[in-house]
């Protein structure tokens, strides 16, 4: 029984002791945006269901999605989906074994943040 004292051992330093960096912040934002998009997914599928059901029901769902609160959710989700899209491309690039040099990784992080903001503004402007 070499290790009787389980559960009370020192842990390695974890994220709480590190200063936030572009790479770490853009990483956790990928997870946050991806999972938060479930809200827009539920709303959009509800909108489709309502449209398939009746005009009255559609007006209820459409009224919510196009209200200021619905607009806010959809606009935030638009940024979230573009951010997650670019961050996903970054992951596919990393999966090819490239882009791990510190300066490249940092530039990719800038690209994801700036690119997502630009795409959001362009999309909102076009649509």
């Amino acid at each position, binding site marked *: *029984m*070499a*290790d*009787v004292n389980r559960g009370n051992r020192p842990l390695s330093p974890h994220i709480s002791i590190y200063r936030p960096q572009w790479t770490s912040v853009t990483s956790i934002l990928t*997870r946050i945006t*991806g*999972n938060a*998009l*479930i809200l827009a*997914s*539920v709303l*959009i*599928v509800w*909108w*489709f*269901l309502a*449209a*398939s059901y009746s*005009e009255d029901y*559609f*007006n209820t769902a*459409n009224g919510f*999605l*196009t209200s200021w609160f619905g607009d806010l959710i*959809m606009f935030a989700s*638009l940024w979230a*989906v573009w951010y997650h*899209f670019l961050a*996903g*491309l970054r*992951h*596919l690039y990393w*999966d090819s074994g490239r882009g791990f040099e510190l300066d490249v990784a940092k530039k990719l992080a800038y690209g994801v943040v700036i690119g997502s903001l630009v795409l959001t503004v362009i*999309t909102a402007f*076009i*649509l």
Partner: protein
Amino acid sequence: MPILTDRKRAVGMGSAKSGTMHHWGMIVSSAMLISLVPLFIFTFGRILGAPYEEVVAYYSRPFPAIVAVLTILVSMVHFKNGVQAMIEDYVQGTARKVAIILSICLSYTIAGVGLFAIARIAL
């Protein structure tokens, strides 16, 4: 005083041996979403806010309807696998299993409802 040997305590605690397939599934679904997501943003975004008749007419056309169906289906598969990875990172024990089961049920429910609704509009 624990009576299990160190070896016995460790057996069965290793990798579940399904991580590679899980990761591959994320790569495949994300590859498909590269084209679907922009197509969905620009088709759905264009019609959101239009009156009922226009929306129904728009989604009776094959292209917007197929884009919406595929986007909902593939993104829910992608969500199912992605949220599972998050749950496995942050939740332990029975709560982990319950959370994974609920998230999978939610993914399939959204996909099923979405497919039904669009089929009903389009057909």
